[in-house]
């Protein structure tokens, strides 16, 4: 009994200082690891938002490019409305197509069949510009319009992409 007691008594435990130092070292290591985990999570979120924003702005750009090129030419181009926020025209199939930007929403409207749909509601800026044949002078009348340009900025969770593009109006006989 005496021998067992001595044996137990000689075992060394951890002092309070050792314990505190260990906790401090562990805390530092955990903090470093946490930074990596945080960076990874933020990177994933940023990648997701970037891909999403890029896809959306490309979709809008392609849609505008394809449709506006189809503006019908009939002595002059069949353009009903051409302002900074709206562009309405008759396409080569005789369908009236209109783009309108209100607030942060760009919508597209067809008359046949009657459909209005949102292209995006995440645009922080959108503007149409119209140019004459030199590509520089602003077209003030329908007869002068040869190029239609759009300038837009799309934002998603703080990530913004801006794009400027223009098309030449086709449909000329």
């Amino acid at each position, binding site marked *: 009994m005496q021998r067992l007691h001595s044996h137990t008594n000689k075992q060394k435990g951890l002092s309070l200082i050792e314990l505190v130092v260990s906790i401090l070292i562990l805390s530092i290591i955990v903090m470093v690891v946490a930074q990596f985990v945080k960076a990874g999570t933020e990177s994933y979120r940023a990648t997701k938002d*970037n891909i999403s924003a890029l896809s959306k702005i490309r979709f809008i750009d392609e849609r505008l490019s394809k449709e506006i090129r189809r503006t019908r030419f009939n002595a002059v181009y069949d353009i009903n409305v051409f302002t900074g926020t709206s562009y309405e025209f008759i396409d080569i199939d005789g369908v009236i197509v209109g783009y309108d930007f209100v607030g942060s929403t760009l919508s597209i409207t067809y008359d046949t069949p009657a459909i209005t749909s949102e292209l995006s509601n995440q645009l922080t800026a959108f503007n149409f510009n119209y140019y004459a*044949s030199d590509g520089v002078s602003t077209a003030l009348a329908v007869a002068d319009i040869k*190029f239609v340009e759009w300038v837009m900025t799309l934002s998603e969770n703080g990530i913004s992409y801006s*794009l400027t593009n*223009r098309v030449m109006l086709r449909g*000329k006989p």
Partner: protein
Amino acid sequence: MRIYNTFHNQRGVSLVEIIIIVIVLGMVAMPYSNGFISVSRSFIINDEVLQSNAYAQSCAEHILYFRRSPDTATQGYANLAISATSTACVAVPNPAGLVINVDIEGALASLDPACATGNCKSVTVTVASSGQTRANIEFLLMN
């Protein structure tokens, strides 16, 4: 007693050893940090590619208009000058940081059988950023 000695002789890890291990691990992990940097860089490249494609497309639209223009005295196919550094797209607004080059070559029968008669011009629009090509559009114009 023997059990006690065995226990007593076990050595732990000193603070200095832990610090050395952390430093060594840090050095090993350094190359992998480039992965995070390249992810951030890819976002910038995505933006450049997007804008470069739009810029090149706008330029191509201008050249197509020039080709189809009814003003054949100053525009049209005949007036589209052959040049490795054509100024055909000076009217298109230049997005910051992007450099455009328009190369117009003529009579390239080797490019397309349709050009065998020489009534053909090849247009190459290249947009670069920081010396790196971000967009490239090639098309043929027939007379």
